[in-house]
């Protein structure tokens, strides 16, 4: 085989790889494009068979209708608070618990960690009823606390950060003890700064999960003004018919904050998704 045919084969292989990824990208991006186009169509156009790819007329009434149907300001605020508190609590409590499970010696450590793991293995749906009952008895439904409550602690976060802390050699914390730190100071001044990338990954994972969480916000908060973007959008879906263009317009509006966040924290998003195995 001469060098020309080697080069040709190499080019063909590269072209094949590119083609494969381009097709994959189109498949992944198509629902988003379809949502974008549908949000500018009329109801009739959106239901038309065979469908038209582009709208006959680019109308923005659907956006006006969506904004009139839903209190978007409140939904944005509630979603932002939900994400903020879920991220803060998950990262803070998971890092403390993860550090304890990874580095401290205490009786019953393995048993307690097994309980954390068991929580990860059970389907989250089985916790919904007891959690709702607790909130209802406390009279805390339709509050921000109700939205945040199930995410105050994260079994996955505890497990994930425990692994991160286990990757730090014991000598580092021992050096800190000898340098005059107690457990808390060792944790705050030495261990936390060493796990910031893992914490950022957990924060991204938690934020994405909180943003997309539908079932719990729908159950905990029934007042439209206390709903999140995801649960608010779900109210646009009627029992017998759905105005798809308005719903798509609403979804597009709901996506804006996440897209902006992604543009700012693209690196952390990708690292986070890669590290946590989330998707």
């Amino acid at each position, binding site marked *: 085989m001469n060098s020309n045919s080697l080069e040709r084969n190499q080019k063909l292989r590269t072209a094949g790889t590119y083609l494969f990824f381009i097709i994959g990208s189109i498949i992944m991006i198509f629902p988003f494009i379809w949502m974008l186009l549908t949000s500018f169509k009329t109801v009739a156009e959106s239901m038309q068979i065979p469908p038209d790819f582009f709208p006959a007329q680019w109308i923005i009434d659907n956006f006006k209708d969506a904004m009139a149907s839903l209190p978007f300001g409140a939904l944005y605020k509630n979603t932002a608070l939900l994400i903020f508190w879920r991220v803060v609590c998950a990262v803070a409590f998971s890092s403390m618990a993860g550090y304890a499970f990874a580095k401290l010696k205490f009786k019953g450590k393995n048993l307690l960690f097994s309980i954390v793991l068991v929580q990860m293995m059970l389907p989250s749906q089985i916790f919904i009823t007891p959690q709702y009952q607790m909130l209802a008895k406390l009279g805390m439904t339709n509050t921000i606390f109700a939205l945040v409550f199930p995410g105050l602690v994260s079994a996955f976060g505890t497990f994930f950060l425990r692994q991160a802390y286990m990757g730090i050699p014991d000598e580092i914390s*021992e050096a*800190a*003890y*000898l*340098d*005059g730190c*107690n457990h808390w100071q060792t944790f705050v001044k030495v261990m936390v700064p*060493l796990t910031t990338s893992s914490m950022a990954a957990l924060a991204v994972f938690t934020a994405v999960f909180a943003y997309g969480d539908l079932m719990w916000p729908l159950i905990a908060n029934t007042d439209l003004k206390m709903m999140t973007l995801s649960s608010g959008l779900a109210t646009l879906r009627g029992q017998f018919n759905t105005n798809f263009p308005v719903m798509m317009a609403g979804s597009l509006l709901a996506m804006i904050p996440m897209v902006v966040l992604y543009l700012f924290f693209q690196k952390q998003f990708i690292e986070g998704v890669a590290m946590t195995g989330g998707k």
Partner: protein
Amino acid sequence: MAQLSLKNICKKYPNGYEAVKDFNLEIADKEFIIFVGPSGCGKSTTLRMVAGLESISSGEFRIDGELMNDVEPKDRDIAMVFQSYALYPHMTVYNNMAFGLKMKKVPKDVIDQKVRDAAKILDLEKLLDRKPRALSGGQRQRVAMGRAIVRNPKVFLMDEPLSNLDAKLRVQMRTEISKLHQRLGATIIYVTHDQTEAMTLGTRIVVMKDGVVQQIDSPQTLYNQPGNLFVASFIGSPQMNFLDAVCEVEGNNAFLRVGEYRIALSQEKSKKLIDKGYAGKEVVMGIRPEDVSDESSTRAEHQAFVKGTVNVYELLGAEVYLYFDMCGTQMTARVSSSTAAKEGDKVDFVLNTDKIHVFDKETEITITN
């Protein structure tokens, strides 16, 4: 600086494993003590008990007479240099060195002065703004030393601090540590499994095996008068030659029968063997490679001659190691590089009988050195 006292120190883990058994040691001010022994002998565990990183199961550990068993590591006024250096990866060299002082709430200007002084001693002045990942192994090691120095602690603990360095740098840093000890006048406990480090650095060496102290002595005494067969084999490179022998006595003279050879011992050694009742008993004879020479080398006053064929010839520049077989045992002779002996040659080897060590075969304790 400080005096340390370890009395009947034991370390027993919950699973019943005893890592350190009845460890006793008095360390004087400014001493450079070396803990040496094979892996798993308990030397690092003892060091960690001194540091407060491991609890003491029983016994008493005192610094300047004050009981330290239950004192937190941070309150013991001890600095430690770890094998992995354990530098804080997120801090610069300056902050790594200043961290301990910051925790003690020392004024900033004092911290700055101390860090810069230590950096000057260790030639780290140009590296103060770097993070540990941007340093070479030797530089990291120096930062770890600097972190210990700035705190001016009562005791320095070093846990195999040179084992991650290449051979050349290790020799260089060994000298640096020795200089540092003289300069600071510090009390140092140094753990190593490298007997060259032990011999060159220590004022006294603690040889350990299976959690038990085998011998505590100066490097010279350990080398010349090992307390038992383990110490004799562990200290010295290449290690001492050992041969199974039978003690034969004629009048006031004792001989060691090794196969076809009958090796006469000096009056002093003979007396010890006879007095201790070893006549006719099996013993182990030990002789260091430098006390075995070939014919061409200078002969010692008291000699025994053995014949052997050279199996392996190793030239080390200034000297040569000759490996030969004696009564089924591999022997090593350390001779001058001017030796005419080559691989396959039949050589008359000369044993310096004044330097023969004799050990009890059962207890392995030294009978005579």
